[in-house]
């Protein structure tokens, strides 16, 4: 695919101009890899057969000239230069068997792969942008008809909600949390004490949260404690055979019901 898609004929002129521009217009490049890719075009070969050594030299030359012109180079250009200098030495010197790490050939092959991959992505981008496009070559409905949304809201409440609501008013305890010794801890004993009388009314499946004590839902610490205690208490009541408990799936609401015909 990336075979010979660049216009090779105009290359010499374009390349010479690019080489000039390289120095003047560092800003126009999208980083060191982009510069390397541009430089690689002077070799006029398949990116797979590119001479990385030659490329490294070209790049180092480019950096030198930029320095001479006192052009400020971003750090990554200099990092690349250092890395290419290292690569160059590895490629030129005979391999040292005592030395650890990848060979110069491996590093060079990887750089060639990176360049080829970047070029492939550029070609792909160009092909993508050249496709027939919505709003330019093909069109959506100009006069879309809106879907009228008819939204019905169904409100729900249980008898327990109703009674708790009434009890709340009659006792005016709305804003008074329970008075506790440890005021952020709701014990399982307390939860049990609270739930035992309530479960008589739980003939149908009722959400565990409806058994939560009033005034414990604000502060997350208290909410956690109350939830844990209420849940533990419901398990206790299930164990005692007074309640049934169910949960449709993980994280689904936990529901409770008075055990069938007990007493």
């Amino acid at each position, binding site marked *: 695919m990336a075979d010979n898609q660049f216009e090779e004929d105009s290359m010499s002129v374009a390349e010479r101009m690019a080489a000039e521009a390289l120095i003047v217009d560092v800003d126009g490049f999208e980083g060191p890899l982009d510069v390397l890719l541009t430089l690689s075009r002077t070799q006029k070969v398949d990116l797979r057969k590119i001479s990385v050594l030659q490329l490294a030299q070209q790049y180092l030359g480019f950096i030198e000239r930029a320095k001479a012109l006192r052009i400020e180079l971003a750090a990554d250009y200099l990092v690349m230069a250092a890395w290419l200098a290292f690569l160059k030495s590895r490629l030129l010197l005979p391999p040292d068997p005592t030395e650890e790490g990848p060979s110069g050939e491996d590093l060079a092959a990887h750089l060639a792969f990176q360049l080829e991959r970047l070029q492939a992505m550029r070609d792909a981008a160009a092909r993508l942008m050249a496709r027939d496009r919505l709003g330019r070559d093909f*069109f959506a409905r100009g*006069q879309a008809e809106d*879907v009228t949304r008819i939204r019905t809201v*169904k*409100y729900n409440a*249980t008898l327990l909600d109703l009674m708790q609501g009434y009890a709340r008013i009659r006792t005016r305890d709305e804003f008074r949390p329970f008075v506790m010794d440890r005021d952020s801890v709701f014990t399982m004993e307390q939860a049990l004490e609270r739930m035992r009388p*309530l479960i008589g009314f739980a003939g149908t499946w009722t959400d565990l949260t409806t058994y939560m004590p009033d005034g414990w839902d604000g502060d997350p610490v208290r909410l956690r404690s109350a939830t844990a205690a209420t849940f533990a208490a419901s398990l206790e009541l299930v164990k005692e055979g007074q309640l049934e408990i169910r949960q449709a799936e993980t994280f689904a609401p936990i529901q409770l019901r008075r055990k069938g015909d007990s007493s």
Partner: protein
Amino acid sequence: MTDETRDESDTDSLFDAPPMAEQERMVEAVLFASAEPVTVRDLEARMPHGCDAAEALVRLRKRYEGRGVRVVHVGEAWAIRTAPDLGFLMQKETVETRKLSRAAIETLAIIAYHQPVTRAEIEEIRGVSVSRGTVDQLLEMEWIRFGRRKMTPGRPVTFVVTPEFLDHFGLENARDLPGLKELRAAGLLENRPPPGALALGEAEDDEDQIGAGQPELFED
């Protein structure tokens, strides 16, 4: 349409107009993509020279007869519109279940326990004013309705619960609602009253009083 011959006969112009089938495609695409109805004139201005948009429209219109959309005449112009019998598809109904607000539950509870009850009485019991929205919502849900007017000054309207309410909560009548004594026994009233409001230890008086008061509320 009886003019199949016509397309082929248009050979006198230097640049032939596209075949009629092609013109039909063009009209179709333009009508589809245009944000507004398009006139024949506008169609022809867009189409290649020598096209007969009026003819293409006639054919296109015929093609769409009985389809899900139709080519219709809008004033001087043409547009594609949904067939009128399919208008129902352009509506989306959604049902959402929501928990009744606390204010609504409390208001409802007071009406259930104290019916017939006036708005002023509800406010007195709740200790806060009752918003119009809350009452409207309960009325709309058909859980409460207006009862007879009170024979007190101003003849205020009262609220009572409806058969739908009883049905929803599985009650035979409002008297089946657990009384305060039972609520207390069930632990729903066990919370201590706020300091100052009702002294502790008066619990029994309190109970008596409520026990006495409540039947009266349900008497009619």
